Structure formats: structure tokens, C-alpha cells
């Protein structure tokens, strides 16, 4: 599923990022980079981020381009299946949320809420490679 997310995103990356004119703000990577998250917090942050994308991002990412919309919904479906797996880890207490991941996720939500919902959603979608690169590296 993560590979499907990656290939789906690669297909629409230029289109989505071109819709985000704000260079000076990032949802995921600033001021605190995902790459600074401790190993013990990775599962929790990943679970929180997948929930964030499912609950807050995809539903606000409608475009006038049906091809792009189809790719977004296929990415969203892949997110749902990964999220289900992560929830199982969470329920088996293998995905504990420490202080740092809670703070980190709060920062991400603050970045998101600092923009109007459509801009925030499109920006978050355009940053999927930041999430995927971090997940690949952390594997």
C-alpha cells in the first residue's frame, strides 16, 4: 500500500504542488522536522498522521481535474488500509504516544489550522513525499 501511495502521489505531485503558492510555510517539515522524531515515537506519529490525512486532508482536496481526483481517492483508500493496520498496533499497545510525538503532532495541527482549510489540505497533500521519505528512511 505505501508503494501504491508513492506511485499515486508521484503521478500528481507537480499538479498538486503547483496549486500551493505558499513557500514560506510547511505543514510537516517546519519548524520541527519529522526526521528528528525518536524511533520510539515513530509508530505513534505515523498513526496520528495517517488519521490526520484521512480525517482532515483528503476530503478537502477536490480539484477540477478528474484524473487528479481519481488519484487522490486511490491514495486516500490506500491510507485507509494502512491506517487500519496501524490501529491494530495501537490497540495492542505497540504504538505508544510519548511526550515528543504529542508535541510534534500538535505543531502539525497548528501549522494546518494556520491556513484556510482548502489551502491547508492542498499543502498537506503536496507534502506527502515528505511523509513517505521519512517513513522509508525510518523502516
Amino acid at each position, binding site marked *: 500500500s*505505501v*508503494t501504491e501511495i*508513492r*506511485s499515486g502521489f*508521484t503521478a500528481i505531485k*507537480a499538479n498538486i*504542488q*503547483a496549486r500551493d503558492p505558499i*513557500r*514560506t*510555510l*510547511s505543514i510537516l*517539515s*517546519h519548524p520541527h*522536522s519529522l*526526521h528528528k522524531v525518536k524511533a520510539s515515537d515513530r509508530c505513534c506519529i505515523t498513526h496520528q498522521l495517517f488519521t490526520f490525512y484521512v480525517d482532515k486532508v483528503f476530503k478537502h482536496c477536490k480539484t477540477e481535474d478528474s484524473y487528479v481526483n481519481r488519484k487522490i481517492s486511490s491514495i486516500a483508500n490506500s491510507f485507509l488500509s494502512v491506517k487500519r493496520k496501524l490501529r491494530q498496533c495501537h490497540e495492542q499497545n505497540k504504538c505508544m504516544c510519548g511526550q515528543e510525538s504529542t508535541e510534534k503532532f500538535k505543531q502539525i495541527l497548528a501549522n494546518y489550522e494556520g491556513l484556510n482549510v482548502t489551502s491547508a489540505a492542498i499543502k498537506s497533500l*503536496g507534502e506527502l*513525499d*515528505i511523509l*513517505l*521519505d521519512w517513513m*522509508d*528512511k525510518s*523502516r
Partner: protein
Amino acid sequence: SGELYCSLPNPRNVHFESINMRNVLHWSAPEGTGDGVLYRVKYSVYGVGKWIRKPECKNINRTWCDLSNETSDYEEQYYASVKAFLNGMCSDWMETTRFNPLTDTKIDPPMVSVSSTEKSISIILTAPEKWKRSPEGESVSLLQVYPGLQYNVSVLNKKTKKRWFFSVSNNTLVVPWLEPGTAYCVSAQIHVTTPLLHSGFSEEHCIATLKDKTA
């Protein structure tokens, strides 16, 4: 106020060309401007608020600028921008798309070295190094950048024209049960599964297995 009147046509096709994370900004001259156009370059880290000028690319007449140094942190993403000047006039700043060094670089083929015995060939593969500031700088193999890096290896029997393909993760491969006294040609390609990247195939390295002493 000495503000330049920016009606010069814009530089075109401003984009990064990256090989092994040597990240060079390229562009085409504005349409119909001929010689004498000078350029300035700036770049920014995505998510950080400021544009930074590149002094070594101020008032240059070439249409490229090496930003490898400025974009070497591949956990970040970048934008770069170019402005043209001619006879007191200027163009707008023209930007790249968002550049992600990790996914937007091209990878060179691996280095291949081969040795042989009577019935086998040993192949040693070396992934290219990430671009570095200076020859004395610390070498970082792309293997460290892309943990999922693999090698696709092709072995061709020059006599029978039979070809085998292997996919290996570590950097050595021994191909057994070959014919003595026969020429084999090896070439290899790098393949990264995620993000999806692959190099071209290397040049062929040919070697003959030793002759069968008992024959």
C-alpha cells in the same frame, strides 16, 4: 528610486538537473534577447521564509548555476529562481517547481569489477557516491541514502548469447557452473524500490573463464 522597469521577457524552463545529488539549476535565455543578458539566482528552503541570493551566480551570462552546496540536505525541499537583466531592463523572477533531492535526482550506474575462475565469475558492485563539496569531503555512498538500493545484474555468454539476470541487495555476486574458457560480459543497474529510482545499465565488463586444465 532607481527601480528597474521589469519588462524583459522571462528566463524559460527554469529547472534542476540532478545526478547523484549534484543539483544544478538550468534555464533557457529569454525569448528573442540574443547576447548580453545577465542573470541572478536565489533559492529557498521549502517551509522557511526567506530567499537567499547565490553570490557566485550574480550577474552571470551562463544559463546554469550549481546549487549542490545549498541543496545538500536531502531531508529538505527547495525552490530556486532566476531573473534576467539587459540594458537596464529586467525580467520577473522565474521559479522552479518544488525540488526534492531524494526523489528528483538521477543515479549513475554502479561500478562493476569482475574476476573469474574456471567455472565461475565473481562480480563486485559499487554504488556511486553522493555529490560532495570537495574531494577531501566525507564520502557518502548512495547505499546509505537509499537503504532499499538493489543491483540488477546481467550476465551474457558471448558464445551462446544466453543471458541471465540477477537482482541482489549486497554488492557481491558469484555466478557458478559456467563453461571454462568462455567469454562472459557483465553489466549492472541500480534499482531503488522506494522512492522508485533506477540508473541506466553500466558498460559491459567482459572476462573469460579460465581454461579447463584437465581437458
